[in-house]
């Protein structure tokens, strides 16, 4: 196995002339190919995928904060959600916005980077530097597109395992993630029990519900119905399926909120006008808001990545691999768990967190479970929820004591 570590901003390989033109036309691709974050490449070290195929070579783009202690016992792995990335803290190089979980992680935060070594890697199939459908297929010299193999949550975790091995960390002190990040947390806890001291699956489920698969299918169909998608080969045709991806994002965005949150934020208010225009303009503020969400998303995200990652979530069913008994997935676990749900989250409702808790109880695992009162829907896990922060801090501090980490 060959591991190449690259420092920031060093190009991976001499890019073909066509690739330069692509980056010029679509600056986002620079981050997909030559990310500004830390990078490790695994050459001729096949990553065997659940679909049966392998990736002979692949790269992982990741960020770290804080210091790994001498015992290497204070590492916290953050798993990001569907459209997240490794920029948990600090300015995102594509959007220029602050990190997506600065509410929870950072100096003096519930997960304190003065105390813990925090790692977050872009997921396999992503478009922020880890190998995904926008990456260059070594076989063709062109972006993979639909030649990229279909991946699963377990494949994403297996790629992260390579990174953790590369960093020389045996056991992670904690693995934390919300939504699809929570699925990765559950997969870590189920298949790599001895490597996870504490696990925090947040606003997530052990299997994707039929309703969630349905919403994802709407999104994928919107992308694939866009003529600019070009059967996944849009980069070669110098096109981007912007309209399709924007509609996919708009539909998905509704599922991240709640009726109450939408009503409070927008009600039936009109957008910059005093009366209805009797047209299909964005008369309502909520329409204007969704259009904005859709159009900013296409500037930062790859349409094929969206297809592959939503598929991985759909395929996730932790119980299915354990004789349809979820508890079997956690048998003999010694991991400490904190399961968190939010009252108004209808995408990953509390009952799905309760299913996880029930399975953990069935194996008498050490589990804490809190349901946080919030009207903000699924997105609550990313927002300012003091009670959520207090429970995470309490859980992490107690786990640190049990792990023998210094206060």
């Amino acid at each position, binding site marked *: 196995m060959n591991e190449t570590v690259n420092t920031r901003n060093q190009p991976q390989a001499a890019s073909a002339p066509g690739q330069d033109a692509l980056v010029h036309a679509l600056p986002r691709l620079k981050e997909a190919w030559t990310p500004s974050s830390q990078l490790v490449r695994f050459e001729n070290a096949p990553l065997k995928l659940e679909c049966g195929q392998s990736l002979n070579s692949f790269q992982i783009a990741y960020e770290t904060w804080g210091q790994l202690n001498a015992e290497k016992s204070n590492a916290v792995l953050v798993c990001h959600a569907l459209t997240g990335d490794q920029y948990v803290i600090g300015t995102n190089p594509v959007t220029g916005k602050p990190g997506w979980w600065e509410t929870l992680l950072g100096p003096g935060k519930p997960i304190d980077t003065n105390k813990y070594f925090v790692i977050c890697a872009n997921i396999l199939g992503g478009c922020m530097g880890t190998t995904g459908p926008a990456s260059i297929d070594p076989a063709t010299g062109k972006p993979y597109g639909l030649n990229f193999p279909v991946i699963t949550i377990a494949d994403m975790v297996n790629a992260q395992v390579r990174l953790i091995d590369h960093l020389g960390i045996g056991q992670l002190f904690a693995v934390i993630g919300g939504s699809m990040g929570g699925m990765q947390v559950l997969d870590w806890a189920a298949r790599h029990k001895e490597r996870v001291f504490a696990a925090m699956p947040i606003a997530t489920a052990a299997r994707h519900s039929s309703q969630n698969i349905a919403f994802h299918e709407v999104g994928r169909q919107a992308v694939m119905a866009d003529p600019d998608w070009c059967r996944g080969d849009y980069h070669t045709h110098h096109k981007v399926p912007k309209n399709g991806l924007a509609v996919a994002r708009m539909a998905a965005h509704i599922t991240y909120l709640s009726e109450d949150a939408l009503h409070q934020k927008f009600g039936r208010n009109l957008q910059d006008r005093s009366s209805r225009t009797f047209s299909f303009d964005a008369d309502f503020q909520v329409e204007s808001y969704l259009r904005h969400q859709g159009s900013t998303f296409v500037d930062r995200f790859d349409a094929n990545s969206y297809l592959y990652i939503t598929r991985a979530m759909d395929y996730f069913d932790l119980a299915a691999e354990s004789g349809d008994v979820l508890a079997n997935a956690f048998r003999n676990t010694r991991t400490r768990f904190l*399961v968190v749900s939010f009252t108004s989250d209808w995408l990953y409702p509390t009952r799905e967190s309760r299913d996880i808790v029930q399975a953990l109880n*069935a194996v008498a695992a050490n589990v*804490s479970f*809190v349901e946080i009162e919030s009207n903000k829907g699924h997105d609550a896990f990313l927002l300012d929820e003091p009670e959520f922060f*207090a429970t995470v801090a309490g859980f992490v501090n107690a786990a640190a004591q049990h792990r023998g980490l210094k206060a």
Partner: protein
Amino acid sequence: MPHQHRPAAATLRPDHQLIAEMVTTGARVIDVGCGDGALLDVLARDKAVDARGIELSREKVNACVARGLSVIQGDADRDLSDYPDDAFDYAILSLTIQATRHPKTVLENLLRIGRRAIVSFPNFGHWKIRKGLLIGGRMPVTENLPESWYDTPNAHLCTIYDFADLVKLVDAEVEDAFSFNARGKRLGIKQSIWLQNLLGEKAVFLLKRKH
């Protein structure tokens, strides 16, 4: 074991102190209806137990987890059946059984998931309660049972006699049992059950299943 938020000794509930004395050091314990986690805190601090809790109130659960306790939001009637047999050395139900929907099933589950069960409850046979009903002719309202009949969560109140009958019914063995008053003072062990049932404000039973 160091613990983050040590409650001052003065805030210890007397019945918690009595229960804590029954638990052996280092045991695996679940406190069903653990409230704000005060008993779990005592057990973790003084007895180094592997302490878990279940609590119905979301606010109390969140407060417990925020102070570092392993507690889940759940319901004694619904969630005890999830646990495997002998998952714990002690399954504790303190001043909660009277508020469950199915006390018999709850007790059976406690005896199944715990090698021993510790159950405390307010004694409805106490003389003040008898007096309230006998003289006043109304459902008694006392310091121990302060809610009016239409407000109370206590759907299944019982006397020490009643509970002893249930223990027999579920085929459990009494290893220890005594009654105590509000300040946690145990009644003299020489008192007959008849007298304990009259004078004890609360009672606690240490139980073990026979088979």
